[in-house]
C-alpha cells in the first residue's frame, strides 16, 4: 500500500491552536473556516450551553450512567509528537485490500491513501471535512447534520457541531460502485484529549460503497472523550455498507450519533462492533424515506470490567413498502452493563411496512446487567412487525458437550460467545471485514 | 336454467388482462374440468367467480341459475350456493374449524332460526368420517399449521357441510401425495349428484383418474381453446400444453 505524504489541512492547525483548553470553555474560532460554518458553530455552542445535562430520569437516558459524562476534565488536544505520529501510522493497518484510507489522530489528518485515479475520474470525492466544506459547500450544507438528534443526545450533537473540524467527506456519484472498502481511522492520542469525528457520506443513485471506521486509543489507559456524528445518505437504489469497530481505550467516554437516510429502493446496512471505552453511548437513527428502502441495523458488543454500552435506536418508517431489520447481540461479563433502547416507529400512511427488532443478551457473570427496552409505535395499517428481547446465559449442556471433547472451560466459553456474536457478523457478507472483526473480538478475550 | 354460465368474461388485475373472453356452461349434475398451463388464468377465473376484490371484470357476465352474480358480494354469492375450494386456503388463527363451520352453516339459515348443535355435530362427524378425518381435527384453528393434505381435506369438508349448488375446485390436487389425492377425490366424488355442478381446475391429468369429468376444457392465455370429453385430458397429458398454445396462437390471429 503506498504511503502517501500526509495531506495537511486547515483543521490540523486549528486543533493545534487550541491546546490544553477544557472543552467546556468553548471552541476556539479557526480563521481558516468559512464564515457561514463558523456562524453555525457559534450557534451550536450557545445551543449546547443553553441545554441542561441529561439525567437518568429522562426517558431517553433511562438506566444510563449519565454521571460518567462529566466533560470538565477533557481538553482540546495539543499538537502530536513525532513518536505519536509514528505509532499511529504503524498501527493504522486493518484490511489488506482497500479503496482508500484516511487516518486522523486527535482530530488531525496525518495520513491518507488516496482513491485510485479511476474512481476519482468518475467523480468520487473523498476529502477531509474542512476541505469539503470549502470546495463542495452546496453538497456539504445540504447533508451535514441535516437531521435533528432525537434520541436523547441533542446537547451532545450541538457540542459536536460546535467543535467539529475533522473527519471525512465521501461522495459517490451516480452508478459508481466501489468494490473495496474505504477505511477511516480515528485515534485518541493525548491525555484527556477530546475528539469530534465526523463522517458525511452521500451516495447518488445506484451507487455502491462500503466504509469501515476504526476508533482506537494509542494508550490503553489514557482517559479521553469522543463525540462523533455520522450522516449517512443512501440515494435511490444505492447500496451502503457501514462498519464501525469501536475499540477506544478503557478510560474513554464516548458518544456516537449516527443518522442513516435510505431513499427509494436503496439499502443500508450498518454493523457496529463495540469493544472499548468505559462508557459508550451509541445512537442510531435509520429513516426509510421512500418505497422499497431497506435498512439492516446490526451490532455486537462484548462488555467486560465496569464497561457500559448504551445503545439507542430508532427505525423510522416514513414511507409505505419499507423494510428494516435490527439484530443486536451483547455478551456481558464482570460488572458490565448493556442497555438497549430501541423503537420501531411506523408513521401514519407508512403501510406495508416490515420491521423487525431482536436483542439478545448473554450474561457471563452474576454482576453483569442487561437492560432492554424494545419499543414499538405503530400508526399505520398492514404492517408486519415483531420484536423480541431475550436475556440468558450459556447453556450448561452446550458447555458440557464442549468440555467432554477436551476443551478447557475458558476456551469453551470463548467459542460459545464468538459463535453467539457470529450470527450478527455473518450478515455482513464481507469475509475480509468479518475476519478482521473476529480478530478484534479474539483480542478482547486475550486482554481479559 | 340450472347452470353456472360464464359469458365472454374479461378480467384484469392492475391493468393487465388475464382472462380474455372466457365462456363456459356448467349445468348442475355435471363435472367440468378446466386444464391449462401455469399462467393461463385458471386460478384468476376461480377467484373472480367467487368475487375476489382484487380483480376487475372489464367485460362479460356470470350467471348462476339465471341470476347475475357479478353484482353480488362474495358472501352473498356463497350463500346462494357457490363454493370455492381455494388453492391456498387462508389461516385463521385461533378460530376452530368447529366454530368456523358453525358460523358458516348458521349464515345460511333464515334469520331468527338457530342451528341445532347436536344435529350439526352429527353431520360434521359424518362428513369427517367420509374424508377420513379424526374428530380432534375440529378443535384445531382453521388451516393453522396444517399440512398441504390437511388443508385440502379441510376445503372438501367445508364443501360437504355447506351443500353448494356449484363448486369450483382450484388445483385441489396440488401438493398432495397419492394417498391424500385418493382420499380427497373420493370425498369429492361422493358429493357428485344431480344437484351439484362441479368445475375442476387442474394442471395435471392425474386428478381426473379419480374424479372422472363429463367435459374437459383446455384454457390457454385466458380463454378456452378446445373442449371435449374426458379423453381430451389424456390427449393433453400425452401431447403437452405446447400443442394447446399453438391452437391459442391460431385463435388469437
Amino acid at each position, binding site marked *: 500500500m503506498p504511503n502517501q505524504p500526509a495531506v495537511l489541512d486547515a483543521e490540523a492547525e486549528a486543533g493545534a491552536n487550541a491546546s490544553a483548553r477544557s472543552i467546556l470553555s468553548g471552541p476556539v474560532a479557526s480563521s481558516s473556516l468559512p464564515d457561514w460554518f463558523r456562524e453555525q458553530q457559534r450557534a451550536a455552542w450557545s445551543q449546547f450551553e443553553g441545554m441542561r445535562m441529561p439525567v437518568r430520569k429522562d426517558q431517553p437516558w433511562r438506566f444510563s450512567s449519565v454521571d460518567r459524562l462529566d466533560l470538565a476534565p477533557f481538553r482540546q488536544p495539543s499538537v502530536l509528537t513525532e513518536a505519536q505520529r509514528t505509532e499511529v501510522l504503524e498501527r493504522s493497518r486493518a484490511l489488506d485490500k482497500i479503496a482508500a484510507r484516511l487516518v486522523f489522530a486527535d482530530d488531525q489528518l496525518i495520513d491518507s491513501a488516496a482513491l485510485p485515479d479511476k474512481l476519482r475520474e468518475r467523480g468520487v470525492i473523498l476529502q477531509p471535512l474542512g476541505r469539503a466544506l470549502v470546495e463542495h459547500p452546496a453538497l456539504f450544507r445540504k447533508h451535514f447534520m441535516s437531521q435533528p438528534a432525537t434520541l436523547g443526545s441533542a446537547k451532545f450533537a450541538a457540542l459536536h457541531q460546535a467543535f467539529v473540524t475533522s473527519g471525512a467527506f465521501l461522495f459517490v456519484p451516480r452508478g459508481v460502485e466501489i468494490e473495496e472498502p474505504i477505511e477511516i481511522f480515528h485515534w485518541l492520542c493525548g491525555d484527556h484529549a477530546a475528539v469530534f469525528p465526523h463522517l458525511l457520506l452521500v451516495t447518488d443513485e445506484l451507487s455502491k460503497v462500503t466504509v469501515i471506521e476504526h476508533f482506537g486509543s494509542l494508550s490503553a489507559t489514557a482517559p479521553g472523550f469522543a463525540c462523533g456524528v455520522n450522516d449517512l445518505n443512501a440515494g435511490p437504489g444505492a447500496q451502503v455498507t457501514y462498519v464501525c469497530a469501536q475499540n477506544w481505550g478503557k478510560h474513554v467516554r464516548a458518544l456516537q450519533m449516527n443518522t442513516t437516510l435510505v431513499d427509494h429502493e436503496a439499502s443500508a446496512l450498518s454493523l457496529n462492533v463495540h469493544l472499548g471505552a468505559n462508557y459508550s453511548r451509541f445512537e442510531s437513527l435509520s429513516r426509510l424515506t421512500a418505497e422499497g428502502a431497506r435498512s439492516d441495523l446490526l451490532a455486537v458488543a462484548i462488555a467486560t470490567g465496569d464497561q457500559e454500552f448504551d445503545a439507542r435506536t430508532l427505525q423510522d418508517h416514513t414511507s409505505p413498502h419499507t423494510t428494516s431489520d435490527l439484530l443486536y447481540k451483547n455478551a456481558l461479563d464482570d460488572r458490565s452493563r448493556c442497555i438497549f433502547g430501541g423503537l420501531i416507529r411506523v408513521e401514519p400512511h407508512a403501510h406495508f411496512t416490515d420491521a423487525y427488532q431482536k436483542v439478545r443478551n448473554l450474561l457471563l457473570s452474576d454482576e453483569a446487567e*442487561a437492560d432492554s427496552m*424494545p419499543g414499538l409505535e*405503530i400508526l399505520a395499517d398492514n404492517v408486519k412487525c415483531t420484536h423480541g428481547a431475550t436475556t440468558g446465559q450459556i447453556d450448561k449442556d452446550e458447555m458440557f458437550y464442549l468440555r467432554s471433547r477436551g476443551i478447557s472451560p475458558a476456551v469453551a466459553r470463548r467459542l460459545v460467545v464468538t459463535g453467539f456474536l457470529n450470527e450478527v457478523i455473518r450478515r455482513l457478507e464481507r469475509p475480509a471485514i468479518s475476519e478482521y472483526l473476529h480478530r478484534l473480538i479474539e483480542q478482547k478475550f486475550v486482554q481479559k | 336454467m340450472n347452470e353456472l354460465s360464464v359469458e365472454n368474461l374479461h378480467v384484469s388485475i392492475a391493468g393487465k388482462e388475464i382472462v380474455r373472453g372466457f365462456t363456459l356452461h356448467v349445468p348442475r349434475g355435471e363435472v367440468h374440468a378446466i386444464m391449462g398451463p401455469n399462467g393461463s388464468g385458471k386460478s384468476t377465473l376461480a377467484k373472480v367467480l367467487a368475487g375476489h376484490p382484487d380483480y376487475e371484470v372489464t367485460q362479460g357476465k356470470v350467471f348462476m341459475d339465471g341470476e347475475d352474480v357479478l353484482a353480488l*358480494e362474495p358472501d352473498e354469492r356463497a350463500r346462494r350456493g357457490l363454493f370455492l375450494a381455494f388453492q391456498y386456503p387462508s389461516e385463521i388463527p385461533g378460530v376452530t374449524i368447529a366454530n368456523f363451520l358453525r358460523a358458516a352453516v348458521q349464515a345460511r339459515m333464515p334469520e331468527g332460526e338457530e342451528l341445532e348443535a347436536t344435529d350439526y355435530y352429527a353431520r360434521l362427524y359424518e362428513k369427517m368420517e367420509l374424508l377420513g378425518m379424526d374428530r380432534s381435527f375440529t378443535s384445531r384453528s382453521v388451516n393453522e399449521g396444517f399440512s398441504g393434505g390437511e388443508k385440502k381435506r379441510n376445503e372438501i369438508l367445508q364443501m360437504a357441510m355447506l351443500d353448494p349448488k356449484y363448486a369450483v375446485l382450484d388445483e385441489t390436487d396440488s401438493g398432495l401425495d397419492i394417498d391424500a389425492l385418493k382420499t380427497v377425490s373420493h370425498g369429492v366424488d361422493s358429493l357428485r349428484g344431480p344437484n351439484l355442478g362441479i368445475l375442476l381446475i387442474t394442471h395435471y391429468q392425474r386428478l381426473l383418474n379419480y374424479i372422472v369429468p363429463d367435459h374437459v376444457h383446455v384454457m390457454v392465455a385466458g380463454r378456452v381453446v378446445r373442449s371435449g370429453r374426458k379423453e381430451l385430458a389424456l390427449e393433453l397429458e400425452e401431447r403437452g400444453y405446447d400443442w394447446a398454445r399453438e391452437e391459442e396462437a391460431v385463435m388469437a390471429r
Partner: protein
Amino acid sequence: MEKETSAVDINRNIGDFAYPEVHVRDAGTGLTEKTIHYISDVKEDPDWVREFRLRGLKTFLEKPMPTHWASKDLEAIHFDKIRYYLSTGTATKRSWDDVPDDVKRTFERLGIPEQERKFLAGVEAQFDSEAVYSNIKKAVGEQGVIFVGSTEGLKNHPEIFRKWFGKIIPTGDNKFSALNSAVFSGGSFIYVPPGVKVKHPLQAYFRINAENFGQFERTLIIVDEGAELTYMEGCTAPKFNTATLHSAVVELVAMKGAKIQYITVQNWSANVFNLVTKRGLAHEDAEIKWIDCNIGSRLTMKYPSVIMKGRKARGEVLSIALANDGQHQDTGAKMIHAADETTSNIISKSISIGTGRSSYRGLVQVPKHLKNCKNNTECDALLINSSSRTDTYPAITVRGTGNAVQHEASVSQVSAEQIFYMQQRGLSEAQAMSLSVNGFVNDLVRQFPMEYSVELKRLIELEMEGSVG
C-alpha cells in the same frame, strides 16, 4: 352465536343509565385539607387514618403529573371540579331488602343479586363512595373468611389491616396512589385464614352514578398460608358528558403457598379516566395471577404488578385490552423478582379499532445474585384500521447468570385474504372480522374462568359491530 347464559353480565351499554342522586353526604367540589377532614369525620376515621390521608394529600399535591411519559390527555382532568366523596349516609346492608330502592334497582339491572345467588361466595356492591351492600355466604364466613368494606376492615380488624395497609403500594408510589391515599373510600378488605380454599369467587361491583365524581376505592386482600381465593371486580358508569375519575389502589398479599386470582372486567363508560395502581406481594411458593380485561374508559393507565419476595413465588398477568374510537388503553405489567427460582409470565393482547390506541408498558426486573428466575412476556397487537395505533414499551433488567428472560411482541392485522376466505364461506364482512378478532384473543381467553370467557367474547363481538369499513 353462543347460547350459554353468562354469569357476569357485561356489555357496553348495560351500565348506561342513572337514577337521580340521593346523596346525604357530599364533600363538595375540589380537594383541600377540608375535604380530607370532612371524609374523616363522616367515616369516623381513627387518628392514624386521618394523618395517613393528610400525608397522602401533601404527596399528591407535590407530585407532578406523569405526562413526561404518559398521555397528555391526563391534563383534561380538572381536580378542582371533581367531587371526592358522595354517599347516602346509611350503613352497608347485609340484605338486598334493606338497600334503598333506587340503588337496589341499579344493581338488579346490572344482574348482581342474581349472580350472587348463582355462583358467588360473597358480594360487595359499591355505589359512588360507599358500599351499599356486602354479604358473604354463611358457610364461607364460618371458615373464618373476612369480607368487608375497607372502612369496616380498618376499624374491626386493625391487627391484620394495619400490618399490610399501604405497605405494598406506598402512598408516594405515584401521583394517583397518593390521591387515593388521601380520599380513599370503599373497596374490599378480605382475609382468608391459613389453609382455607374459597371455592367460589368473591365479587365486588363498583358503580359510579354521579356526575363530576371521583371514585377512590381501596382494596386490601390477605390470603394466609396455603389458602386460595378468586376475586372478581366489575365496574360501570353512565355516559356523562363530563370527565369522571376512578383511581383505585389494590394491594394483595399471598402468604407462603397461597394463591390469589384477581379478575377485572373494566367496562367504564367512555368519559371515565381510569388510573389504577395494583400490586401483589407473593411469599414463598405463592402465586398471584392478575386477569385484566379493559374494554371501557376514556383513558386507562394500569400496570398490575407482582413482587415475588419468596422462593419459588409465581406471578402472572393475562391481559386483554380493546381500544375503540377515542379510547386509549395504556396497560401492561410489572414483575419484580426478589428471590431465587421465581417465575413470571405476562401475556398481553390488544386490539385497536378506529381511532383507538392501545399501549403496552412492561417492567421486568431480575436483580443480581438471584438464581433460576424466569420471565416470559408475549404481547400481541391487532390493528383493525388505518387510523388506530399501538405502542409497546417494555423495560427489562436482568442480572446474573442463572436467569432467563424473554420478551416477544408482534403487531398484525386481519388480512384481506383472510376476510375473503371467510366471505366465500358465506359470512358477512363484519362477521368475518369479528370471528378473526375472537380468534386473536381465543388462546388467552381460554385461560380465563368459564363465566368470563364466554361473556368477554360476546362483549368483544358487540364492540366490533360497525367497526368494519
